[in-house]
């Protein structure tokens, strides 16, 4: 499987990153098999968080067994020093390792949160301290919030080494600044910050719960995913061709093998095919009957 330099970290990440939230839906034996499957196919970057149910615990045994083969990213939703320090310690314990390769401020949404994490007594202080102590190797940020906020974070956090944000053809087709994650990708590339793409496989929101009860949804994802080999491959190719370092696999374990297969077969996607996908989805999302042209 193709690997790409993860910014300035010195690590070459596989072109797909395993979103380990998928382990939360599996029993331990299945979780172990899933990790082996990914390793067999050359996936070397795993992403976990304390908020992913018991994914940390289920990843633990195989992570310890294959510690040197796996670059593990973990996250904290805490914004202040004490909370972040405590959460990092908890993750180290639950994963059962003495070092996390990439520790990310998780789900940044508001400007005031950026103030808090960058300020005195903020979460970044705890992460930098952990870096000095050898508990963490690299600092990252994740957000599916306002692209402008991520751009601000890229400008303000000098030692930021990775960013994780949404990128898919539906988002690319929209002009509003609130969807302009391509600007984030461009800026991160200029700064040589590694880029991890999420929501690459999102098809759209689930139908209203009146039409489809939460318990009747066929996938664990909080959005409706694309779920055929062709569509998964198309979405993967698009995200990877756009220039992300690595595309994060979706949260439902039933989809992971298809994503790994797509990643393994990845061979680029030319611009005309990328535009074709954007246009197709643009029309499917808001069909305008009288529109005959692309």
């Amino acid at each position, binding site marked *: 499987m193709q690997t790409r330099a993860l910014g300035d970290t010195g690590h070459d990440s596989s072109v797909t990153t395993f979103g380990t939230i998928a382990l939360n839906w599996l029993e331990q034996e299945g979780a172990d098999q899933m990790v082996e499957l990914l390793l067999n196919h050359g996936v070397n970057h795993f992403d976990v968080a304390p908020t992913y149910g018991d994914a940390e615990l289920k990843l633990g045994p195989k992570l310890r067994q294959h510690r040197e083969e796996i670059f593990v990213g973990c996250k904290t939703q805490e914004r202040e020093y004490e909370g972040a320090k405590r959460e990092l310690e908890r993750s180290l314990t639950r994963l059962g390792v003495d070092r996390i390769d990439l520790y990310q401020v998780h789900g940044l949404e508001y400007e005031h949160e950026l103030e808090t994490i960058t300020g005195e007594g903020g979460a970044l202080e705890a992460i930098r301290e952990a870096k000095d102590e050898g508990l963490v190797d690299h600092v990252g940020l994740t957000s599916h919030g306002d692209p402008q906020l991520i751009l601000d974070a890229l400008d303000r956090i000098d030692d930021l080494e990775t960013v994780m944000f949404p990128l898919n053809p539906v988002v690319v087709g929209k002009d509003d600044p609130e969807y302009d994650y391509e600007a984030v990708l461009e800026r991160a590339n200029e700064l040589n910050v590694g880029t991890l793409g999420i929501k690459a496989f999102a098809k759209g929101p689930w139908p209203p719960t009146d039409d489809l009860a939460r318990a009747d949804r066929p996938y664990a994802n909080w959005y409706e995913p694309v779920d055929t080999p062709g569509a998964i491959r198309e979405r993967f190719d698009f995200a990877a061709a756009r220039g992300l370092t690595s595309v994060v696999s979706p949260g439902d374990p039933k989809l992971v093998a298809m994503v790994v297969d797509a990643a393994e077969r990845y061979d680029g996607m*030319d611009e005309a095919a990328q*535009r*074709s996908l954007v*246009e197709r989805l*643009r029309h499917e999302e808001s069909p*305008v009957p*009288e529109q*005959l*042209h*692309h």
Partner: protein
Amino acid sequence: MDVPETVRAALDDRPVTGAVCLEAGAGLGNATAGLLAAGARRVYAVTNDRDHATAVRERVGRDDRTAVLEADLRDLPLATDAVDLITAHGLFNVLAPESLGAVVAELTRVAAPGCHLVVDDYDPVPDDAAVGDLFAVENAATRLARGHPALSFYPAAVLRRLFVGDGWAFDRELTLLEPVPWTASHLRAHADVARAAAASLPDELGEPLAAEASRIAEEIGSESVGRMYGLAFRLAE
């Protein structure tokens, strides 16, 4: 409404900033929106279809750089040498062969010396494409009802030679879409055109054509096939 990626790609290497532009065959104003976003000084959006004119006004009419004109492309209400950049984005496929010469001559008349021209359109769909059957029924119905086909797909090389023959220098060719995503909404719209034309024909002729258009569109659903190209030309200074 967002500017399509096709329009962005077609305008990306053109000098739009500060230019007086003409969108020939405005449709829903996709190119007009792209020209405005790229910094055009003025955009004339020309269409002979009242519904399209209304749609373009609703979309971009608040921008005082825009003038939406309802006019025939063979007789534009614009002065000679009036525009710096012309777009024909998805225009030529709705022009029948017999009107090509007059439209090209009129676009050339309003083009200022050094004018840029962007022509984005579709290559003929491949023989084995299912959408080809729908277009065939649509063209049969419109030919019988109005005397000319709704759709004519000209190969890139044909339009290239046509404009070069009228004094335009060829600049470049891009592939804008490959494959072309003919979505369910596109195909329903084509079936609608076929049924509307069929409705004006005698029942024994119109009814089977309308039924066939509905059947094919329903059966295909959607299809991604063929190529959309982007040509660019320039008039001598």
